């Protein structure tokens, strides 16, 4: 992690920690929504940004996590934070089963399949299998989470819970990026044939990335269920998936700080222009088109991986004047 980035995270954390002093409950709730979307966007970033798999069905895994947590909480009276890892696991297993036969498909086909999976999940939830999901009304009466004996119900309390989880996620995903797994994914995204040739089991890594990203979305879903205490299928529509996809693309796919900025922009900007609420998606659509022409790598694109040996890096930069994996020539 570069020094500037560390300072940026520090400042952001300090501002967030102090925000209950300055903001009212409404804006704190907006910040909590930002946290949930940051989690979703970071989870999709593993799939879309790191592994390069076009997944437009992230809402499906979000929904699986949320419903798992909700069912465990209301049927078995399991505390919702205990349900968190279970929700992640169920979402990850579901994603692995779904993705297993389709990860090898070419990008845009995978996109279509994941849209289809998202729709099927929504239709299944509405049709109330075995009376578990409550149909179109959803599940209500999910217990509030409690942490160290403290019951979390007010927005500022959720703020610390949610952003605490975001901080943990950011830390872990930065570690992941540096790991063998993360490097393999970047290699795979840049050149799948070369990666395969270098002994990376591409299909397996793609599947792992898919399951990991989906599992994380499942945990975000559990947190969402805990925050809302009521969930219904309409919260997990196709547009949720589109928004999360947009956050990753807009911010800079593959770049953790970029994705966070993207999520924050997509949630906060419409709040600032509430008068134009109905034109919100119109603007997003236009933004997606313009962005792809003007700056396809996103607001804060991934930088080429730097090496510790300065001289080697300088030599490499001199030899290839290209802009790195961001795609800018």
């Amino acid at each position, binding site marked *: 992690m570069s020094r500037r980035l560390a300072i940026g995270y520090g400042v952001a954390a300090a501002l967030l920690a102090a925000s209950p002093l300055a903001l009212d409950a409404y804006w704190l709730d907006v910040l909590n929504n930002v946290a949930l979307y940051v989690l979703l966007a970071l989870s999709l970033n593993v799939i879309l940004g790191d592994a390069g798999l076009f997944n437009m069905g992230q809402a499906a895994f979000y929904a699986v996590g949320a419903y798992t947590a909700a069912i465990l909480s209301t049927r078995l009276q399991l505390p919702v934070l205990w349900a968190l890892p279970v929700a992640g696991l169920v979402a990850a297993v579901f994603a692995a089963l779904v993705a297993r036969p389709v990860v090898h498909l070419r990008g845009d086909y995978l*996109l279509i399949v994941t849209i289809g999976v998202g729709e099927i999940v929504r*239709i299944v939830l509405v049709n109330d299998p075995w009376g578990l999901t409550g149909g179109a009304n959803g599940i209500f009466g999910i217990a509030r989470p409690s942490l160290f004996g403290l019951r979390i119900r007010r927005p500022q309390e959720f703020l610390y819970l949610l952003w605490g989880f975001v901080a943990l996620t950011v830390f872990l995903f930065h570690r992941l990026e540096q790991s063998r797994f993360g490097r393999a994914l970047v290699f795979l995204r840049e050149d*799948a044939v070369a990666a395969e040739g270098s002994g990376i089991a591409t299909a397996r890594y793609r599947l792992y990335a898919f399951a990991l990203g989906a599992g994380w979305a499942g945990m975000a879903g559990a947190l969402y269920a805990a925050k809302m205490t009521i969930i219904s299928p309409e919260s997990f529509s196709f547009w949720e998936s589109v928004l999360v*996809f947009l956050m990753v693309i807009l911010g800079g796919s593959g770049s953790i700080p970029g994705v966070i900025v993207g999520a924050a922009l997509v949630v906060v900007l419409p709040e600032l222009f509430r008068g134009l609420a*109905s034109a919100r998606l119109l603007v997003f*659509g236009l933004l997606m*088109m313009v962005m*792809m022409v003007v700056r396809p790598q996103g607001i804060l694109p991934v930088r080429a991986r730097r090496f510790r040996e300065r001289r080697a890096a300088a030599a490499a930069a001199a030899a290839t004047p290209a802009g790195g994996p961001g795609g800018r020539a």
Partner: protein
Amino acid sequence: MQQLLEQLVNGLAVGSIYALIALGYTMVYGVLRLINFAHGDLFTYGAYLGLTLLGSFALQDRLGPVAGLAVLAVMVMGLVALLGALLERAAYRPLRGSPRLSAVVSALGASIFLQNALMLIYGARYQVYPDVLPQTAVEVLGLHIPVVRLAVLGVSVAMMALLFLFVQKTRVGTAVRAAAIDQDAARLMGIDVEKVVLLVFVIGPALGGAAGLLVGLYYGQISFTMGWVYGMKAFTAAILGGIGNIPGAMVGGLLLGVVEALGSAYLSHSWKDGIAFFVLILVLIVRPSGLLGERVAEKV
């Protein structure tokens, strides 16, 4: 037995609409290897433009029902074709040669933009078509078949037949096929590929717009989001038949319509919209090249 046959006719009518839309996906895909996500929304524009033109010109009163509707259809197709050409200029041409993801995102952006522009113009509520088609039905072999259903089927099949003849028999159609097989070779043979692309973005949306008009006349109710459900189903039809393959889109559309009609009649109506997605995923897993098409899976 009677119910089965009636559902079969129903499925064929709906399927012919899917097929009309699917042709737009498959032609664009054939030439550009691009999924035009905004195609479903162009279809919706056809339905809304048809409604507006129907209300403002009252063509069927001046020219009689058949000629009036024919003129209306030509106007709708022309306008949607224009929209398709504009879309290609604005959203896709600047991205020629950039990575696949860029084009996909731009296409989605165009879809969201078009859909919401429609919502801002007409409002988010359902719009209702006036009753212009006769509500009579004919008895064929003891089956009770609404005339409208037969008309939809007939018009769609006629348009598909015309397109098929155009692509197979004319010089321009040959150029389209050549560009679909190999763009570079086509360019070397003196074919202006950019013109072919433009042509494909005119014909596809024109057919999609006609399908939108048919849906409006047939079901009487349209909404600004319907393009995405129809679009997904039509895309499924295109994949089912083998994307890039024009007869494949027709076969896939009709087949999907029939499967869906039978499925919702005999299994469960609330799962109707899920059937297409199951078919889509199944085809992509079992036979991604579709019934008549090219290979889509990467061998990596």
